[in-house]
């Protein structure tokens, strides 16, 4: 355990825990767009910025991926932190003005947002889908395009590898903007433009999971495919 001070409150924090975890334990409201409790922190949206004092100096730090250190002082609602969040939200809103999730959070942190509801579902590169696919599902069908000298991309995007995807839909579930769409049509599921054949439950006949997903589960767990073709409700 380490001793930290958050907004003047003395707290005993777990070793290796993040500022965000501790702040949320204290019911302090810190906005996030790219954070999910079950996924590794990523620090993409820069909305969870707080002020941190180490070595006598106050500096901005994103709370989601900053681990606490003994003696650390944290201000979650200083004017500097709030300004910084506002700028991050302003920039996101500048790039994705029609995306509702961005508009909502921008408004929340004090950005002037137009009244009309947003109609777009842009990818804001938060990386939740990439992390869910790799860390939870374990297939890594989604990756970031990278940048660097000589790799000039106008707009970096998420790359989809249809050969690895099992159609589980975890990416659509975690996507905060609705960019990742999952459509169902009888015995078909369409995700990232790939069509998956759904498997019917052998008890109730309802199409409940893509065949590729069940085959993947069978392969990784060793349970025969036929034992997996009963849906959760009928099991």
């Amino acid at each position, binding site marked *: 355990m380490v001793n930290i001070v958050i907004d003047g409150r003395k707290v005993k924090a777990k070793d290796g825990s993040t500022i965000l975890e501790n702040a949320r334990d204290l019911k302090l409201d810190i906005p996030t767009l790219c954070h999910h409790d079950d996924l590794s922190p990523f620090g993409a949206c820069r909305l969870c910025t707080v002020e941190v004092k180490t070595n006598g100096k106050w500096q901005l730090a994103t709370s989601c991926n900053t681990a606490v250190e003994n003696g650390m002082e944290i201000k979650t609602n200083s004017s500097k932190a709030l*300004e910084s969040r506002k700028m991050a939200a302003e920039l996101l809103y500048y790039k994705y003005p029609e995306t509702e999730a961005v508009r909502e959070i921008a408004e929340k942190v004090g950005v002037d947002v137009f009244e009309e509801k947003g109609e777009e579902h842009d990818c804001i590169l938060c990386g939740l889908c990439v992390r869910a696919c790799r860390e939870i599902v374990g297939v890594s069908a989604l990756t970031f395009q990278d940048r*660097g000298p000589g790799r000039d991309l106008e707009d970096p995007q998420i790359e989809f590898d249809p050969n690895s995807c099992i159609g589980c839909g975890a990416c659509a579930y975690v996507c905060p903007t609705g960019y990742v769409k999952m459509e169902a049509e009888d015995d078909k599921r369409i995700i990232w433009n790939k069509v998956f054949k759904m498997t019917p439950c052998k008890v109730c006949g309802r199409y409940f999971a893509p065949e590729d997903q069940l085959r993947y589960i069978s392969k990784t767990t060793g349970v025969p495919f036929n034992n997996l073709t009963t849906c959760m409700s009928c099991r």
Partner: protein
Amino acid sequence: MDRVAFSSWNGKIVDNRKGNVSKTSKSADIKFPEMSGGEKATALMGWNGLVAMNKKADILSLTLNYLKEIRKISCGECSVCMIGIDKLMDMFELMIEGFGDKEILDEMEKIVREVSANAKCAFGQSALFPILDAIKHYKSDFISLMKGEKKIEDREYSTVVTAPCIEACPAGLDIPGYIELIRNNKFGDSLNLIREDCILPGVVGRVCTHPCEEACVRKDIDEPLAIRLLKKAAADFDLQNGASSLGTPASEKEENVAIIGAGPAGLAAAYNLRSIGYGVTIFESLPRAGGMAAAGIPEYRLPSDILNHEINLIKRMGVEIKLNVQVDELDFGKLQKQGYKAVFVAVGAHQGKNMGVKGEDQECEGFVDGVEFLRDLNLGKKIESRKKVIIIGGGDVAIDCARSCVRLGFKDVEIVYRRSRTEMPAREEEIEGSEEEGVTIKYLTAPVEILVKDGKFKSARCVRMKLGKPDESGRKRPVPVKGSEFTIDADMIIAAIGQSPALPVVKNKKKLGSTAWGTIKADPETYMTNIKGIFAGGDCVTGPATLIEALNAGNEVAKSIDCYIQGNHFDGRVSFTDVDLTKHRGQAFISKSAVNNVSFLDKRKRTGDFAEIEGGFDKSQAMNEAQRCLRCYRVVVWQKAV
């Protein structure tokens, strides 16, 4: 340094423009980056500031071009940096169209400050900073632009992207780039990027002395990135997943190049020349290709399978390697008649130096030279283990010999070194590794005589040393202590006190230029020797140096040979010598993160076995380690002189 009109480099303001009184000095005494080949610039903008050489500098177009260049490096992974740059460029466009007022400049300043304080990586934290200097110190230019009184001038630009680790790497690998690809789970793309400047990734990933890690900015925060191990991970992941091949040349060229020596320099040159279409033949004196990597690095550090695989890939591109061809006499005229337009001499430094002690020149059993010992061992010659061996020297070769002897089953392995541990040139991790395996080191001791009995080595007469004043290498000179002589009995002695090249004799009117150290004299930029068409690089020019330095010589010489054959001018790399790349003016917090470690072979399993000691990262570990990279890309844009 030249007097400048304005400089904010490193945050120090020098202003010599008309009406402005310089607060400090007339010239910017802090070194800022200069263009390659001595080309002149009117101004530059880089991560650390803005410099205008003279009145002809057009700061407006420089700023706009700089924004365009940093936009290419901004990864978009955090919300503030790339969108911030986009917004700044949009605001610039507005100003060009004649819109805006002073407030737009305040808004730009605010964006720069917030992005610098809140961006995720060191690139985002530093790249935008010089824009502030432009807005602040060239405000009237921006205002004139908005009023339509000034236009953006059409100027030519030159851009360089680097990083502290890239500059520290002799071969200038795009380290943040290949780390980012690993972080993004693109091991294959990462390997392809590594191969652009390092054609022996599995080899270098194992044996590199990794000066990049010394330069890693994380070093001052927690621990440097394990850059070498990440390279190894990219190479090994490829091997485990079916092994990719190298591309074939897009088009063939008529000309051929001959290379003497299939070491890292020769192989790198061969690969680079072959990939642009030249026919390449390598002549190698040993029965195995790889140079010191094959004959000098023991199996436990570099498994031969790894080296052979990487050499085979180069061969499969069409590079011909003729083994067992000793080139004692280089007949360039004859080679030219055979169609070779240029020769690259890369024979390395494989000849052990004499210790200069009594009795050294007598042939006797049990007295060998370090590089010869390692060469015999690597080429499969049977070496019988005896009871005690002493190794003379304190460099990597001495340690390699000692640790090999442990594996061969010698009971007592002792290194004899004339200085103290602090001066030992071998790498610390290697010294520690040898001690772990039971090697003892006798410091401040030097041999004075080799004693032989019945044609067999019997003992070494040694003398104790003390350290005197530093010599030209900066290390304290060892001085013998009078009357301290003593004898060490042993069954074998290995002399590993340094190597020099065995140079071929060139059949030519002119003699091949060489140095007092017995190395070849070659132009440091073009690698051309005093004989036109004959190039030289690697250990035979530098003396014994690191593998990555030799490999870089091969990379560079290939470009130079191509320019020579095609009649083009060869431009060297931009030099960042004396330019501090680690510091920048942004101030964001960087949290500590633990380094990922690999496992090592159990000490008990090391005797009698040459199995590789060091383990590697698995995929997750590699990605986690890659996550620690701060991405310290530094961009410099020069406005060329009109």
